[in-house]
Every structure is written in C-alpha cells, then in structure tokens.
C-alpha cells in the first residue's frame, strides 16, 4: 500500500480547478481554504467523513452556491459562476447529492428540462419530448423507466438514475457525481461505472464521491481526501485504512464488527402470506435478537413490504403477528404503539422523514413527545438530555441541537433520522437503507449499534442496497424478487455475490 | 331583442359553431302583471351587521302582517359584498319571473347591467339604502346630505358656533359617505369659528370607530363637538377611556349612543341621534306593492330622517336599556306623522306585531 502524492508541476491544465475555496454558513465553516483540481479524462474521487465539505465544494464548482473566497478556474481561465446555468454553459454538469428532479413532472419533462424539443410556433412538442426522453433512456440501456411516469412515483434508485441520465446526456466536459451510488444496487452501479468509463475515454473530467470504498477503488484514477472542510491530500493509490485514518484523524477498526451468534429465541414478528401492492404472498419470521437482512434489486417490493409492516401502506391479504398476537397496523402511529413498538427509518429522508426546516432536537424528539411531556408541556431539560445523548452516540455533526436539519450534510441528516427511532425505543426496528450516504466511520458505528441492539434482544429487519453490508451484518438474508421471497440465505459465510446472484437468477431457475 | 339579432351577433363574433346548441329563448315571455299575490324578492348584499339583520327582520315581519300577508308572496336572499353573486341571484330572480325585486346593493353601479335586464323584462326594481344609479330602478332613501347637515348644524348651535370638532366618517368610496361629509362640511364653512381638528374613518362600525378614535385622541387638543357617521357609541367609549369629557355629539341611531343620551357608564351626553332607518325596506315593500297594483305611479321616494335628541329620547320607545349597544334603535318611526310604526319584536325576531302594518308613503 504505497502512499504516493501525485506530482505537482508539469501537469496538464486541469479541466476544472478550485483554488483556496472557502465557504461558511453562519458559523459553520463548511469549506475552508480547499483546493482541488480534476483533469480531463480522469475520474477523481472526493472522499471524507459526513460533513467534510465534499458536497459544498461540488456545489461551488457546479455554480450552485458562491464561495466566500477563492477562485474557480475552468480549463485554466478564472470564471465567476453565478448560477448552475453559468456552469452548464462551460460544460460542467452536476448530479447533486440531494436530487434536483421536479417531483410532479414526468421523467421525460425532467430529462428535457431546458432543452425541450420545439414544434410549430416554437411551442414545446410533447410527443417529441416523450420520444426523445425514451430514446435518451434507451440509448443508455435503460428500458425499465417509463418516460411518462411522474418522478414522484419512482423509487429513489430510479430517480437517481434519471438524474444521472439527465446529466450525462448533456455531453458534459466536466461531470460532478455527488454520491450517485448511495441508493443504487450492485447492478445499477455497474451500469453507472460503465457510463463513467465511456465518458472518461471521451475525455470528460469526472468528480465522484462515495462512502463505499470498493467503488472508489474500482473507478477512481485519483483520490482527494477531505477533512474538516479542506483537502488533506491527493493520491493515485491509497489503502482504505490509511484513507479512513486521514479522513477522521484517528484509526478506525475493520469495517464489520463480529456478528453475534444467531439467536434461537422466540419469534418477535411473524408474517404470513402477506400480499398487497408490490408484495405477493410473503411469509417470514423475525426472532428476538435477530438481524434479518432483506436483499434484492430496487423496485422489487422491499419498500412496500417495509411500509406495510410500518402501517404506511395497507396489505390486501395475509396476517401480521407481533409477539404471537395477530395485529392490524393501521398507521405509522399505530405501529409505534403496537405492543412493543415497530419503528421504520425510511429511505428518502428528504420527503419521508425529516422536517428540514425544524431543528435537530425537534426532529429527534418527534415520536417521544408524549413520553417527555408533563401535562402536555415538553420537559425541555429531559428532551435536551436525551437528544444530546443520541447526538453524541451517533456523532452527528451539527452546530447544535437547535440548528435546522436542512443545514446538515446528507450523512448527518440520516443520522438524525436514525436517532429519532433509537429514542423511540421500539423493540422492532425496520431499517431501510440506513447507511445510505453515511461515511465509513459512522457506518462502522451503526453496525456496532445494530449488533448491540440485537444483543439486547431487539429485532432488526434491515434492507440495504449494499449487498456487502447485508452479507456481513445479517444473520439471515431474504432476497425479494418481484415482490416474492426468492431465496433465503444463511448469514454464515455469505458473500455479496451470493445475494446478487440470488436476486438476479431468472424466474425459471 | 329577437333571436335573429342574437344569432347574427354570434356569427359576427365567430362563435356560432361553439354555441351551436340550445339557445332558443334569449327573452322570456312577458309576465302577465297585476295578479295578486305579487311575488316580491329582497336581494340584500351582506348581512354582517346589526342594521342589516334588523332590516331583514322587519321585511320578514312585514310579510307576515296585513296587507302584505295576503297581497305579497315574499322571499329574501343575501349575497355577501360580492357583486357577481348578487348579480347571479338577480338573474335567478329574473328567471323565476318575480314581479318586483327590492335591492340593497353591494355596489351602486355594479348591478346596473342586470337591473336593466330585469326592468326590460317588466320586473319592477326598487333600490334602497345603498341605492343604485341605474335610471330604471326606483330609489327609496333618505337624503344623506341632510344627515350631515342636520347633525353639523345641531353641533354648531350647541357649541355656539366656535370650537374644535372631530369628524368620524364612514366607508370611503360610497355615495352615503361622500354626501354625509359634504353636508357637514358645508355647515362648517358657514361657521369660521369652528375648526375640524381631525377626520378619520369609523367604517360605520363601533369597534373600528372606537379603535381609530383611541388611536388619534392622544394627539388632539380639547374637543368641543363630535360629528359621527356611525359607530357613535364606540367613539364615546374611546373618549371615556382617554378620560376626556363627552362633548355634544351628533351621531347615528345606535342604541348604545342613545343610552349615553339618557345616562350610561356614569355619563350623560348632549346629543342628536339621526338614524338611517332599517324600515326603509318596508317603505320599499309598500312602494313595490302600490306600484304593482296601480295605486301609485312609478317614482322615487325620499323620507325624512327619524331623529331624537337628549331632550326627546324616550326609554322603551326610542332607546332600550336591555338591548345591546349595537342594536339600531331607529327601527320604527315615531310621532304623529310617522311613516312606519312597528313593534320591537319585529326588529329583533322578524315576528309579526299585532294589527295591520300601516306604511304611509309621502305624496307622490
């Protein structure tokens, strides 16, 4: 594992470069004197902890926000980017971490926003737009996304793909991809990397961020590590442990904690022949103290299954038993209150979980208000203590409990959401892709936390778009395909490849 | 207008295809007039204050009393202060082919179009209180200029032709407000000793008048007289709250004001209470009835304001200590030449009083 600084002088002019960039939000210095350069025809990874300033730096280079200090250069010339539009004109396109698709518009409308085909009288030709949208998707090998569907009806992974398609069909000379893989499955990631390689070969400068080290290794030509808002080194080759040490300033143990022994205890949650929209005849059992992994390709009923167990969607048939007793979960509120309690940490934190304009504290204590209130008035000291405890446990990086969640980095938002459900103290936890967009060190903490919670006898049902994670964390993995359980895999000795293989084995097999 | 004309109009406008179906009757057959009972509808704009409620109650009570009980089949509608809605309701009344429509309009001009359509179809339109400008509508009202003049003259005389007065005006943009102000201002001009030290709107509403008076009072010198278009009791309450003596006051017919005239809250005010009478609706009803049965030619009616002063106000007749301040105590006329005499229950509940209702219209 050689640690090689890339040579400084005598290099070609970078396609895009930020020099001495700083940007603060109120008191928070998101980016501080950071310098970064990406060359044409390279994939340059930007890595760092949650809140290290990666997204902020990308937003500055992509024209979305303006730096307080520093200079942006495109192909050697200093430029002033006042809006994304300015960046677009210079050939720089960005897939932002928090997606920027317009929810109530169709996929085609989103893909062609700002470059709609015109018909007579210069009016937008809707038929041509559908055609072009479909052609764009098909041209990139995507046939399963309906160009006429509304974006708000798509699962997150498909939205992410649409957003990526929109950027790469602009023929960018500079492309920023801010955590594009966080909600994608293996196969979709492979598709994306294929696209990235193609663009790289065509001379595009690609900046890529991810918290999954294997992805970084497989695609990046160079890696820049960020910490605390600044760049701490750029490498052509670096090992994971070194990189993590550099990101965090401390040593972090190996990624996956030892799995506790599989429990043989009683059944906490039993599902019999559950059917409904997207879910067909699913039966499963979740024991106390068990971590049950749910795997499979996105869009195959995971989301619906989790929603049904949480009462956010109603099944049309089947039975759910909690601690042996049949229950009907009419709403999320009921789920939290049913027996020992069921909690769901949802996928899309922006629309399904967090109240972005409200404070970290308010977001965390939302489900436990009745518990910490006396005569309807919230006991502030208790609230403060509980929230602070969770915040420290999860290492949420925020200016304070009072800062609005919308101001946190993506990974930190995810932690707040997780914190809420930890506070709620439910015995059954449905974790839906909780490590999405979470940095390596925190992921490790979440794994440890899961192990600990399971050790305490809580049951965890855990979906992840990262098969690697499932393979290492779960006692058992159920693979869903087209809404049915396609395989049940035992955790010991399980590999990510096994899960992917089970997910993709065609129906005949 | 005939079908041919309308059709041609459509063709010219290029919309014949669009409007292909269904318009065979653009005019309604003329109504066979002169058959009792007459169908008379009251189209009121908004019903948000006590005055309007009393007015509508009087109308309902009137319909229950002879001669209206047998001569008239009445109905009433409110539209809020929404011209389109009132216009829509009037269209429906036209479609129903009523004999007469009595209106208290949301706008003096906004209904002119529909009024013209009503009268051209032989429907009698009588407007009162907030009267309309449409020439084909009959108007029943008081002389608002005289309201302003009468009150101002009384105040001027009481204060001996000199001193400071305030003017509390009404809802800007209405004829009533403008005419009342003009009546008062013409009087002030004749008395160089009188200074109008402030002029603010009370919106004909006691709460608003009180709030606005309270806001301006601290900045004002001694005030010798009040001239108020409405919300009079509110203005006086603001004076009390500011610990100012109550000067001679010309105001509206609010029960609260009249209570002050007989002694209220430890104060007794010298005053003249001139009311826009809610019984204008009964005058309009009588006018409609008598025009329809041919006993009176078409023509506008103006009635004098009923008024009382501190010297003439009478408990149980023109002031009611048990009723709220916001009640309009001028629901009935008094004295020998009274135009309308009706009981308090009629104004309060819309129930009939004993006997016949005798409405005396001024000579045509």
């Amino acid at each position: 594992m050689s640690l090689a600084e890339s040579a400084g002088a005598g290099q070609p002019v970078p396609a895009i470069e930020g020099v001495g960039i700083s940007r603060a939000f109120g008191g928070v210095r998101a980016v501080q004197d950071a310098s970064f350069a990406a060359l044409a025809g390279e994939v340059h990874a930007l890595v760092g902890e949650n809140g290290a300033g990666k997204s902020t730096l990308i937003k500055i280079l992509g024209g979305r926000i303006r730096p307080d200090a520093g200079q942006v250069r495109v192909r050697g010339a200093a430029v002033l980017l006042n809006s994304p539009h300015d960046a677009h004109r210079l050939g720089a396109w960005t897939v932002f971490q928090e997606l920027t698709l317009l929810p109530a518009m169709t996929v085609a409308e989103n893909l062609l926003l700002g470059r709609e085909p015109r018909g007579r009288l210069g009016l937008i030709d809707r038929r041509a737009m559908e055609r072009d949208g479909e052609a764009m998707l098909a041209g990139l090998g995507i046939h399963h996304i309906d160009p006429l569907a509304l974006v708000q009806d798509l699962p997150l992974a498909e939205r992410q793909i649409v957003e990526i398609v929109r950027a790469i069909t602009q023929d960018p000379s500079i492309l920023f991809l801010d955590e594009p893989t966080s909600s994608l499955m293996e196969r979709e990631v492979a598709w994306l990397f294929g696209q990235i390689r193609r663009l790289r070969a065509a001379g595009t400068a690609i900046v890529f961020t991810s918290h999954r080290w294997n992805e970084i290794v497989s695609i990046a030509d160079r890696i820049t590590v960020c910490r605390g808002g600044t760049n701490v080194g750029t490498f052509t080759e670096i090992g994971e442990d070194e990189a993590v040490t550099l990101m965090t300033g401390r040593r972090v143990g190996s990624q996956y904690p030892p799995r506790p022994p599989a429990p043989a205890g009683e059944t906490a949650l039993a599902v019999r022949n559950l059917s409904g929209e997207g879910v067909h005849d699913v039966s499963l059992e979740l024991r106390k103290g068990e971590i049950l992994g749910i795997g499979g390709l996105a869009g195959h009923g995971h989301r619906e299954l989790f929603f049904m167990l949480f009462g956010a969607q109603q099944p049309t048939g089947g039975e759910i038993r909690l601690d042996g007793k049949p229950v009907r979960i009419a709403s999320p509120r009921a789920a939290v209150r049913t027996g020992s309690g069921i909690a769901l940490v949802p996928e899309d934190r922006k629309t399904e979980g967090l109240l972005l304009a409200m404070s970290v504290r308010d977001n965390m204590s939302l489900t436990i208000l009745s518990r910490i209130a006396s005569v309807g008035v919230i006991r502030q000291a208790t609230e403060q203590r509980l929230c602070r405890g969770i915040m420290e446990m999860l290492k949420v990086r925020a200016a304070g409990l009072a800062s609005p969640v919308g101001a946190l980095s993506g990974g930190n938002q995810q932690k707040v959401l997780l914190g809420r459900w930890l506070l709620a103290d439910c015995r059954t936890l449905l974790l839906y892709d909780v490590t999405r967009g979470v940095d390596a060190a925190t992921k490790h903490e979440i794994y440890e936390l899961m192990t600990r919670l399971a050790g305490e006898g809580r049951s965890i049902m855990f979906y992840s778009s990262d098969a690697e994670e499932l393979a290492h964390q779960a006692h058992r993995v159920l693979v869903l395909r087209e809404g049915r359980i396609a395989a049940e895999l035992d955790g010991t000795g399980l590999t990510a490849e096994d899960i992917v293989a089970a997910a993709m084995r065609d129906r005949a097999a | 207008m005939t079908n041919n004309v309308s059709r041609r109009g459509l063709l010219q406008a290029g919309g014949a295809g669009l409007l292909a179906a269904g318009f065979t009757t653009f005019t309604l057959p003329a109504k066979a007039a002169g058959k009792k009972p007459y169908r008379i509808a009251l189209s009121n704009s908004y019903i948000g204050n006590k005055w309007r409620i009393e007015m509508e109650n009087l109308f309902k009570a009137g319909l229950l009393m002879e001669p209206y009980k047998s001569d008239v089949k009445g109905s009433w509608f409110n539209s809020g202060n929404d011209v389109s809605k009132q216009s829509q309701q009037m269209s429906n009344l036209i479609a129903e082919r009523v004999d007469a429509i009595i209106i208290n309009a949301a706008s003096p001009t906004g209904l002119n179009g529909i009024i013209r359509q009503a009268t051209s179809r032989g429907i009698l339109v009588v407007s009162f209180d907030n009267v309309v400008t449409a020439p084909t509508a009959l108007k029943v009202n008081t002389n608002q200029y005289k309201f302003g003049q009468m009150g101002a003259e009384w105040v001027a005389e009481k204060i001996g032709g000199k001193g400071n007065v305030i003017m509390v005006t009404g809802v800007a943009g209405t004829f009533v407000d403008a005419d009342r102000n003009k009546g008062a201002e013409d009087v002030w001009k004749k008395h160089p000793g009188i200074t109008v030290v402030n002029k603010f709107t009370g919106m004909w509403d006691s709460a608003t008048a009180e709030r606005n008076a309270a806001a301006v009072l601290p900045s004002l010198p001694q005030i010798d007289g009040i001239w108020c278009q409405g919300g009079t009791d509110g203005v006086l309450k603001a004076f009390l709250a500011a610990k100012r003596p109550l000067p001679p006051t010309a105001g509206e017919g609010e029960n609260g004001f009249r209570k002050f005239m007989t002694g209220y809250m430890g104060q007794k005010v010298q005053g003249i209470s001139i009311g826009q009478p809610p019984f204008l609706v009964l005058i309009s009803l009588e006018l409609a009835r008598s025009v329809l049965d041919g006993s009176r030619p078409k023509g506008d009616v103006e009635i004098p304001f009923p008024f009382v002063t501190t010297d003439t106000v009478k408990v149980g007749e023109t002031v009611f200590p048990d009723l709220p301040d916001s009640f309009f105590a001028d629901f009935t006329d008094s004295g020998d030449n009274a135009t309308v005499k009706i009981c308090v229950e009629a104004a309060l509940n819309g129930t009939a009083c004993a006997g016949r209702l005798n409405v005396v219209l001024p000579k045509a």
Partner: protein
Amino acid sequence: MAAPQAIATRRPRLAHAMLQSAPLLLSLAMLAASIVVYCAIYLASQHRLPGGFELTSTVNNTMPLAMAAVGQSFVVLTRGIDLSVGGIIDLTNAVAAVAIHDSPASMVGWSLAILAIGALLGLVNGLLVAVGRLQPILVTLATLSIFQGIAIRVLPQPGGAIPDAYGAVLANVDAPISLIYVALLVLGWRVFRRTRLGVSIFAIGNDEPAAAANGIDVRRTKIAAYVLSGTFSAAAGLFLAAAATAGDATTGNSYTLTSIVAIVLGGVSLFGGRGSAVGGIAGAFVTSMIVNILFFSHIDPLYQNFYEGLFLVLAVTAAAGIGHYFRRRA
C-alpha cells in the same frame, strides 16, 4: 453494457394522462355534476329547463371570477399567492370607468392601456417578491391596500359611463358571447403550458431550489407569474366594468378570496407546481352553480353561507378522496 434489469410494466399514454390530470378531470366532473343538479332543481321549481337567458347571465356573471382565477393560478403554481387580485380589479375597474369613452379608439386603446396597468401592478408585486425576497402573502396584502387606496382616489364615488357597445362585446346580455372568451382562455392555457415560461412556472412551484439547480431563472419566472396575474385581474376589472357599464372602486374586493376558492375547487395545489388554470375556470363556474343551486332550492338565506361552506368542504374532500383512491388503484 450491463443495464439495470428491465421490469417492463408500462402504462399506456392515456392512463398516464388521465392519472396525471386527475385533479383537473375531477374539477370538470364536479362542474358537470353541479350543472346537472342545477338543471334538476331548476326543472323541479320552474317546470322547465334553464335556457339562453340563464346560460348567458351565468357566463357573464362568472367571467370576472374566471379571469381572476386564471391570474391567481399563475402565482399559486409558483407556490406564491396573490392577495392583491381584488385591489387590481378595483383599480382597473375604476380607471375603466373614468377613461373609456364612446369612440372605438378609446375603447380599444384604453382596454390595452388598462391591461398594461394591471401588468405594471403585477410587476410591482413580482419585484417585491422575487427581488426583494419578501413573503408573497405579506407583499400582496400590503399592495392590496395600496391599490384599493389608489382606486378610491381615481374614482371616489361609483359611477362613470362605459359605452353600451363596450358591454355588448365583453358582456353581451343577449347571447353567451363570453363563452368565446372561455374557449380562448382554455386554448391560451394549453399553448402556455408548452412554452418555456409555462414549464418554468411549474418547475419552481415543484421545488424551487431544484429548479434553480436546473438552470431555471427563478426570479424572472416569478416576476412573470405576478405580471400575468395582474394582467388577468385587469381583464376581470374590464369585464366587471363592461357588465355594469360603470365602475365602482370597491367591487373587486371579494375576488381576492373567491379567486383562491375557485382555483382550489379547480384542483390547483396551494403548495404549487400542480394544477391547471382550466381547473380554475371550472372552479369559478362551480361557485356560480352553487349560488344557483342554493337559490332554487329555496333554503333559508340565513343558512346560505353555511351551505355554501359545506358544499365547498364536501367538494374539496370528495375530490381529494376520489383522487387518492385512483392513485392507489393505479
């Protein structure tokens, strides 16, 4: 190239279109239903069906509201709100009463000038909202009072004489000529939806930061929305003046609220980005139908407001419920 697995369950185009314009279809259905109920009640009480007079007067009475609703739609679609609609109608109505005279040149010239005034008033709102970054509700509440104040200055007392010829064009009492304007509005809206501005208005109503990230000029779009709102409010002012052949500087006031009611009935989301001005027009006609239905059902006028409120709540709830049902089925 490895592609994500295909799960080809495409919905046909028509199904998509139906689903995506469900709120609009619901409002049209609501309109159809209210017309049927009206005809039934009318038939029961008058023993004949409503004819040309009823159609003409309903259309004429509803035109100003339909115009105001279209104007309001533009702003609400950007996730704003325009409370100054009433003030703009007041002011333009007042100017019309004072300015329009009996010559064709005066009628055409002043009509255009008054529309321009409306646009200008909208521009004031737009600048304050988009450039001044103030809350739309505050800005337009303030300008509402200001415009009302100026209107009273322009026309202190109701009056003025709008030539009959003007009324015959905009609010003809003998034939429902105004239906042509409705048709033009619908057509115009469909064209507008296919312009860059149309797309931008929907985009910023959907998600303003996302729209900005996509290179849409948020400021210019918002300003344009308020300008359009002002222009259509001015058109409403002209229609009112034409119908009354006179002006009144206070007649517009009620339109602030009723225009919002109309677009909500029409399925325009107050949270922006979803809806259609055509729905707003339908909503305007639904409110007129409600007035008619209550009239001919001869309920006690004292309870009229109650029933009107009840109808609105039921209508909106039913629409939301049906919409929800279909979304879940789909």
